[in-house]
């Protein structure tokens, strides 16, 4: 195995694209090193991206936020502007692992590990986040939900690296929230999760919405029908009831030791209701 620490993204892309054998990108390593030790095979090349200029920074621009691929989740939680604009994204990122893991793990790593139960992914999808992909053919920006294609698989081609995650500048009266169900109080993998992102008009009526569900299908689900239920409402009881029904219906969960299909469907509806209620309150709705 070779370990390299390139100083530019172009060099990192070139090394990855030119590698003959298996290659892996190292940011926080909280999935990669566990996989290496678990006997899932050692890559022939490890490209540590933490020395690349700008990748360890959160930048606030006129368009919103750009979160570098090497920024640990603990840093997201310490950024007051980001927390104020996107509290749901930050609370999701903060749920990944322990304090020790928080000091290393990244949202790009969480996305590219492509676990159906990844905590930050439904929140990012609900937020309409985009991924900046750099590869041999140049730079492109894609929606976050197009990255995972199956458990452990992504749409990224050989030599491609996600450089940053982009979050839009917030419109007034906007809020987001993320909730998951786990049988413990912390340090566990989501059995079901829900992210909701809302913007209200000046009368407190939802004018735009995105609802995403995690751990209930092979990849994160963006449930457009659920968003349609919320738009035009003030989250009255009938709306929340319909939201739960639509979300339960959209799930395609598996039965496993952590939860049955029936349980996951029901909890998806409940979590969507609660996340929507929280996002609505954060957006200033009453």
């Amino acid at each position, binding site marked *: *195995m*070779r*370990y390299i*620490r390139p100083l530019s993204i172009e060099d990192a892309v070139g090394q990855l694209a030119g590698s003959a054998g298996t290659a892996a990108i*190292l940011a*926080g*390593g*909280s999935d990669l*090193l*566990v996989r*290496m*030790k*678990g006997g899932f095979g*050692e890559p022939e090349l*490890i490209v*540590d991206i*933490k020395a690349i200029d700008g990748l360890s920074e959160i930048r606030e621009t006129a368009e919103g936020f750009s979160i570098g691929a090497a920024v*640990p989740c*603990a840093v997201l939680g310490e950024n007051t502007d980001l927390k104020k604009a996107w509290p749901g994204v930050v609370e999701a990122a903060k749920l990944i*692992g*322990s*304090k*020790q*893991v928080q*000091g*290393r793990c990244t949202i790009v790593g969480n996305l590219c590990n492509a676990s159906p139960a990844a905590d930050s992914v439904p929140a990012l999808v609900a937020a309409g986040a985009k991924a900046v992909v750099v590869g041999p053919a140049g730079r492109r920006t894609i929606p976050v939900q197009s990255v995972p294609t199956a458990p452990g698989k992504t749409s990224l081609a050989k030599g491609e690296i996600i450089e940053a995650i982009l979050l839009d500048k917030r419109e007034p009266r906007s809020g987001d929230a993320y909730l998951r169900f786990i049988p413990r109080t*912390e*340090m566990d993998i989501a059995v079901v999760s829900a992210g909701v992102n809302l913007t209200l008009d000046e009368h407190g009526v939802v004018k735009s919405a995105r609802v995403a569900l995690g751990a209930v299908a092979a990849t994160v689900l963006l449930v457009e029908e659920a968003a349609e239920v919320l738009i035009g409402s003030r989250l009255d009881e009938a709306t929340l009831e319909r939201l739960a029904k639509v979300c339960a219906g959209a799930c395609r969960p598996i039965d496993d030791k952590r939860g049955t299909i029936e349980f996951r469907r029901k909890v998806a509806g409940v979590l969507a209701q609660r996340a929507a209620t929280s996002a609505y309150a954060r957006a200033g709705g009453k």
Partner: protein
Amino acid sequence: MAGIAVSTTINGDAVEYLCQPDETLLDVLRDRLGLTGAKEGCGTGDCGACSIILDDRLVCSCLVLGAEAEGRRVETIEGMAHGDTLHPLQQKFLEHAALQCGICTPGFLIAAKDLLAKNPDPTEEEIRFGLAGNLCRCTGYDKIVRAVQDAAIVMKGA
């Protein structure tokens, strides 16, 4: 194989070592540098026994490559006491009998030190959440929590 040359700072001292690309920082500390305070419990980032502080961030050294320490600052349990004077957390762990077999103790002490550096006056809940990445199979955690609470009082008064 010659390995990768790494220059780093450990507990305030400049240190240089050679390591293999797939060698973890925990293995470097224990097997190459003789710093055996950090323990290997699970080796997969679940138990916290190998906790160290890397550039002011609490991390599991089993999930860091030795090569990644280049140019960074590493703090381990060996740097916690000043000569013969124990750190207040170490003293309080003894007084409260917050350890039995002791394997988890260095990790708990480092994690508690990081917790109190960032939050000098934590609630019991904050302590329990803050130390959730450290597993102890002997004490049932209660004595550890009391020791950290007591050390926080001492450290605030200092």
